[in-house]
């Protein structure tokens, strides 16, 4: 693993930590999305409510970090035995999302990109 790849992994991890931070912490979202349906179960009331903008940003950031990335952004490493490897920098993972149903059960979806995750949760790009 090259130093650049290590730094990329550090950045990915740091972003994941940022995602995990409380509302108000800085979150990096390359695209701005907004919610069109309620999918967050409120911790205080247990009621399904619309997500806050910060919660939407956190979901989008998580999907951006963990999902598919352009392969051009990832360096190939040639090893002494002739093998070639690519460190995926934390991306290309299946990300499991859930949304609540009215009957209290959950519907899940394994996604790989921001776009499909957004579609599953009813997020649309905020063009304003």
């Amino acid at each position, binding site marked *: *693993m090259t130093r650049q790849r*290590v730094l990329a*992994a*550090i950045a990915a*991890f*740091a972003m*994941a*930590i940022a*995602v*995990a931070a409380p509302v108000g912490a800085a979150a990096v979202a390359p695209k701005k999305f907004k919610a069109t349906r309620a*999918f*967050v179960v409120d911790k205080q009331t247990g009621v399904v409510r619309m*997500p806050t903008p910060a*919660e939407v940003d*956190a*979901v989008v*950031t*998580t999907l951006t970090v*963990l*999902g*598919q990335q*352009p*392969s*051009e952004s*990832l360096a*190939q490493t040639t*090893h002494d*035995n*002739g*093998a*070639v*490897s*690519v*460190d*995926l920098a*934390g*991306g*290309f*993972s*299946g*990300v*499991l*999302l*859930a*949304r609540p149903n009215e*009957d209290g*059960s*959950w*519907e*899940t*979806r*394994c*996604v*790989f*990109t*921001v*776009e*499909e*995750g957004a*579609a599953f949760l009813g997020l649309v790009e905020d063009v304003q």
Partner: protein
Amino acid sequence: MTTRRPSPIRLVALAVASLLAPTAAAIAGPAQFVIVNINAPGVGFNDPTPAAPVGGNTGTTLGEQRLIAFSHAAAIWSARLDSAVPIRIRAQFTPLAANVLGSAGPIQIFRNFPNAPLTATWYHVALANKLAGVDLAPIDDDINANFSSTFNFYLGLDGNHGALNDLVAVLLHEFAHGLGFSQFASLGTGAYFAGFPDVYNTNLLDTTVGLHWSQMTNAQRLASATNWGRVVWDGSGVTATAPAVLTLGSPNVEVNTPASIAGVYQFGTAAFGPAIGNSNVSASVVAAVDAADVAGPATTDGCSPFTNAAAIAGQIALVERGTCGFAVKARNASTAGAVAVIIYNNSANAGAAPPGMAGNGVDDAFVTAPTVSVSRVSGLAIAGASGVTADIGVDLSIRAGADALNRLRVYAPFPVVGGSSISHYDTIASRNLLMEPAINPDLTHNVKAPFDLTWELLHDIGWTFPDADGDTFPDDEDCNAHSDVRPTIIINGIDTGVPNRGLGSGCTMADTIVSTKAASGNHGSFVSAIAHLTNEWKDAGLIAGSQKGAIQSAAAKWK
């Protein structure tokens, strides 16, 4: 417990985690899985919150239960895969964003490594290690797994998860992606990952053009990614086993006339009304007309009673999505006498796939016609044609989730849904499979036939099963995982000279004689049992009369 290797990434994680040492738990099995716990003390796997044992999970803290569930899922895979190189899963529970349960995937991919079955082809690192026989990335782990510490998973091991999400099933699914159940070609351009196909691509066949993904141009792959129902997995392991897993009866929506729009259509199903195929429907398709009123502003939305009910009766009603619920439209169609309903996407959903349609709890009970959804393109094509006839039902000659040749359909909806397309089995499969895009609540923790087909796909891409005696029967299916496979039957040191045949279950003749000895109460009953057994073998043509005598003679001397 094993000693963990130094890793730059892990050291970074440690720095963030206040320089607290992670731990690693080794899961003993034919393929050794190592769960590398990178959580800091007090959180994630180390959360000390007391927890009552649940569903066979004996942990007494939340952290212990998480680790036990992780280890349980890893052990299921460990028992069914064979590798001389430990598979290291870098794992943590952290407070992920709302509604994000977790993720897992390979940390690296490799090509052109020693012993690679296919050159110039990407492999997930855990599989590459297994095939190479050495750890190609010894300073790093193989699979990255990060799950939500704030989501309320079911942590039991017994699958009795009720309305909660079963963590073990989730882990089995995501680990499979990390082991090789995913592809890397871009679904936005069709281009290979960094110019090369992956091993998953080599088993993806588009039955329209008759090419594998590893044989296509970028444009062909791009088109194939949304060729619903026509992209199949043609690996021999999955195909041979599919009949043992999938049920006969493939749901189908097919337009028969006019020829200009004839064909099989992608569709979504409804959670209300009769199931497709409850009775197969073959009829004309008639566009519904209703009043443009407060219930719905368009005459095509089906939100009010149909004004052309006479034309609809006995036919398939075509209705446009929007304004009112799906069940309202289907109820109005049923009231008009429709034998089936097709709801097509409206302009607001012009680019969307045919939706799954939820009921509203009010109109559902009045829906008597099976109801399907189609895309807007499909709906407009049907609406714009005359003399349209269609079949809506199940084809009992085809298994649900496979094509007519039992090749598994992969998930290839239109429009494409990012990486989920192609890297999962089709949602049409029945029974439900572990590697569909959704973690369905009826999944078991079995990853192979007759319950599932995940293991078979991993086998097709190069994973092998544990087979201690090399008799081609996986150990967990072998009636004797350590068979006597010597070429002749040797009884207590006496070589009978009789060929030692396999009996089709993983046991050999010699195994059977030994097990007969163990089950016999005394020498007399053993000799009698061997006489009976050898008579059966002779009658079956497995041995000759003289060979029967040789076995019986040797057995008589085994006291």
